[in-house]
């Protein structure tokens, strides 16, 4: 029984970690390059989810082939990333890069609140739930517990693809290496001929798309309601703070740890489940204030 419990808890934990990781990855990538903690990331998550749900409804209503449902999720995320993310970067974020971090936080928080209202204007306040994708993909029974193939395979695979894709992009492509250069030192990179403006825009769009992808992939499993972005934002922040801000690979590890620990908590001590991510964060930050995977940084003046 105990081994079974461990295996099912790991299955549950991995799928929730996958969703969490996608959102956290976007947030930490943006922070790494722009040094802005983008609170509006929660809205991008929500917009991605709602747009994906809208696509799902259109596919079902127009009788389009159901096989389109899964790619539609990714398309929705990219549309939100480019349109909403791109607009945000051009109109607002690039103008506040050199401002006080507290001010940046407040400004992105304001954007978050505005977008939350925009989202209510567009999609209303009644819960949305479009789960055709999940039903199409069927179920798998593991040790007597029925899982949807969507959570067991699709979510972890998507997270893995995003992780490997980003790693490849940053290390093996010219554009990716430019991003890495800007992450290390914006001024030096600019002096060496990297167009930091382009890099920022591109990074923001990629990060925003990842956030929207988190929402889009979550949409078939959950009800979309007003306020859904806030919750995810706080959890993603716990993940990236635990890993160390800007740590892409580290975030994957902490997302897994947090996801699996929460699953175990539901089995063993459901009362502390909500606390688990923050307990882990506090314990880590007490010992390593810079985060689990970040090297202590010399403060740049």
């Amino acid at each position, binding site marked *: 029984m105990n081994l079974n419990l461990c295996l099912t808890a790991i*299955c549950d934990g991995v799928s929730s970690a996958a969703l969490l990781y996608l959102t956290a990855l976007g947030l930490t990538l943006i922070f790494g390059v722009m040094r802005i903690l983008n609170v509006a990331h929660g809205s991008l998550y929500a917009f991605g989810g709602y747009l994906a749900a809208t696509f799902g409804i259109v596919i079902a209503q127009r009788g389009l082939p159901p096989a389109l449902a899964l790619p539609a999720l990714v398309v929705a995320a990219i549309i939100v990333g480019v349109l909403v993310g791109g607009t945000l970067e051009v109109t607002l974020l690039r103008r506040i890069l050199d401002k006080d971090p507290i001010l940046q936080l407040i400004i992105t928080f304001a954007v978050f609140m505005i977008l939350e209202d925009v989202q209510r204007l567009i999609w209303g306040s009644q819960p949305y*739930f479009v789960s055709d994708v999940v039903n199409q993909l069927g179920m798998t029974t593991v040790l007597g517990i029925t899982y949807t193939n969507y959570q067991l395979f699709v979510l972890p695979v998507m997270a893995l693809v995003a992780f490997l894709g980003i790693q490849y992009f940053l290390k093996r492509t010219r554009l990716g290496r430019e991003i890495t250069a800007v992450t290390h030192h914006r001024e030096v990179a600019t002096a060496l001929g990297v167009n930091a403006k382009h890099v920022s825009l591109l990074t923001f769009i990629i990060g925003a798309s990842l956030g929207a992808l988190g929402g889009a992939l979550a949409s078939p499993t959950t009800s979309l309601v007003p306020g859904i972005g806030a*919750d995810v934002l706080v959890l993603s922040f716990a993940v990236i703070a635990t890993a160390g801000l800007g740590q892409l690979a580290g975030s994957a590890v902490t997302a897994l740890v947090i996801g699996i620990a929460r699953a175990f908590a539901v089995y063993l001590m459901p009362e502390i489940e909500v606390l688990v991510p923050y307990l882990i964060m506090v314990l880590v930050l007490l010992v390593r204030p810079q985060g689990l995977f970040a090297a202590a940084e010399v403060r740049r003046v």
Partner: protein
Amino acid sequence: MKRKVFVIVAVVLCSLMATLGYGQQKPSELKVGITTFVSGPASVFGLPGKAAAEILIDDMNRQGGINGVKIIPIFIDEGVGGDKLLSEYRRVVQEQGAKVMLASISSGSCNIVAPVAEDLKVLNIMWDCSTEKILESHRYKYVFRSGANATTEMIATLIYVLKMKPDFKTIAVVNMDYAWGRDSWELFNAGLKVLKPDVKVLAELFPKFGATDFSTEISRLQALKPDVILSTSWGGDLDTFIRQASQRGLMRNTLFVLPLAESSLERLGAALPEGVIIGGIGDHYFLHPETKNDPAHKAFIQKFRAKTGSYPIYPSYHMAQALAALKGAYEQAIKNNNGKWPTTEQVADAMRSLTYKGFGRTLHMRQDDQGLEAQLFGITKSVPEYPFKVLDQMMIVPAELVTPPVGEQSLDWVKKITPAMLNSNQLKTYQYTK
């Protein structure tokens, strides 16, 4: 000098008389403050409540308001949080001059506003919140509840479950982690221990309010295999839980008991399977077996659908009850006052023995300011007439049977209930008819 004093005294007396006279005079309009969620996850209740208020107040005003006085609603968003809600509440009473407040949906909000209403001496009708603790721990002069309290709702649920599935051995609960989720389980569990003490509680899960994923809870429930799963969740949380549970087959072998799911029936559509126990938090249902053919009810449903595109759900019906109580109390107080416009105290007195009716059964207000509201339950069934599940094997549990008498504390009373309750001849059953 003497003359000066005389003038001052005369002026003071005159102005005093003017204010006294003003109190008796019929105002040109009656401002009613209404707190409801227009933001946040609870807006799934708040907006249907608000829509109902707008429709019904419009209707009332077209028929001459209350004795010729128009009702002017002032809406306050409960979603702004406790402190802000309180300052808005005070502002609407003190600056905008609302004489009656309909507050609130959340029991947390009710806890906050009840003592303030008493301070401000403004009539407050708690139109949707159900925590029994407010009226059991205090005697208020100005605070009323037009619907049932949590004890009535949960003990009625227990009776229906025991009637429909008397032989279950194990139960698990999945409630939202906040006052209502905890309190409703405490009441249900206390009743269960008295009426069916051999039932084993396999898991008590309280996922976070607003949780978006219940996969782990569902895995655990699949491993535990309880006979019954109770959930008093609502809104997006309930929808997500039901969809995930039905996708993964948890609902095939387990009886789900969902006392608030009347409010999710239309939204869940085909995702909700047959054979699930559903409650209406009162006798609220657009196909209420006793009132579905009432012309007033039919007209309300039609207007509500035209305005919102959906069938009314229980918060809309709660709003109807509260407005009926408000109107009834004013009219009774005017009668008691020989046709003159009453003071707030006179309205409160009239309210205390009021009989009023929304779109369900007739309700009675008790001396402890608690309304007696019957409870409707049913089991889901697919029918060709609707694209979502309807209720079959319905039962209406009268409030008198399942509400502690005036002055008794709920948890003490629940310990004294007996299985004789289950055989009461007041439990009426109905099948689904078109």
